[in-house]
């Protein structure tokens, strides 16, 4: 599965567009992580607990998007994008793109 942020993939051509594919995840840190993050925010610097939260959310959103694209019969995703938001201490990440079938030129 090739996933790119561009419209075209060099060396390949799109033979079929399957449609839009998504991967969505909402994650939260537990009370332990939130307390540590709160303490870190007092003194400043990187809040590692929330870096972990968003890194894992990004990976899980991408995993789900690719799984959905595979289920659609695609072998590549073009124009892949990420979007994120937050709800209190929860982080939401969505990965989306266009599921396509490609073949080598």
């Amino acid at each position, binding site marked *: *599965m090739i996933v790119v942020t561009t419209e075209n993939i060099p060396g390949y051509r799109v033979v079929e567009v399957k449609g839009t594919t998504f991967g969505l995840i909402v994650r939260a840190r*537990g009370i332990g992580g939130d307390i540590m993050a709160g303490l870190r925010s007092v003194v400043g610097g990187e809040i590692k607990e929330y870096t972990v939260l968003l890194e894992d959310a990004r*990976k899980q959103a991408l995993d789900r998007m690719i799984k959905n*694209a595979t289920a659609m019969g695609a072998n590549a995703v073009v124009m892949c994008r990420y979007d994120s938001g937050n709800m209190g201490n929860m982080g939401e990440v969505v990965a989306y793109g266009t599921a396509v079938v490609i073949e080598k030129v």
Partner: protein
Amino acid sequence: MIYIISYIVFQVLLLIILLIISKIKDKRLHQDHGEVVPPGFEPTNEVTIDPVTQEKRRVYFNPKTGDRYYKIEK
């Protein structure tokens, strides 16, 4: 007085229970992925370095199921 002490003890116990549950539930994604790739997975060029643990992981992809496996590389 006994009520105040009971209240404080209850709050401390509740916090400890929540911390234990949090420790069990709040795990890193793919932390069960190790160095042994299951059959059916193909290597990809996708490599990520974890921003906190600095672990390098290569992504393996199963084209039949769409699952991804994050193999730890040294």
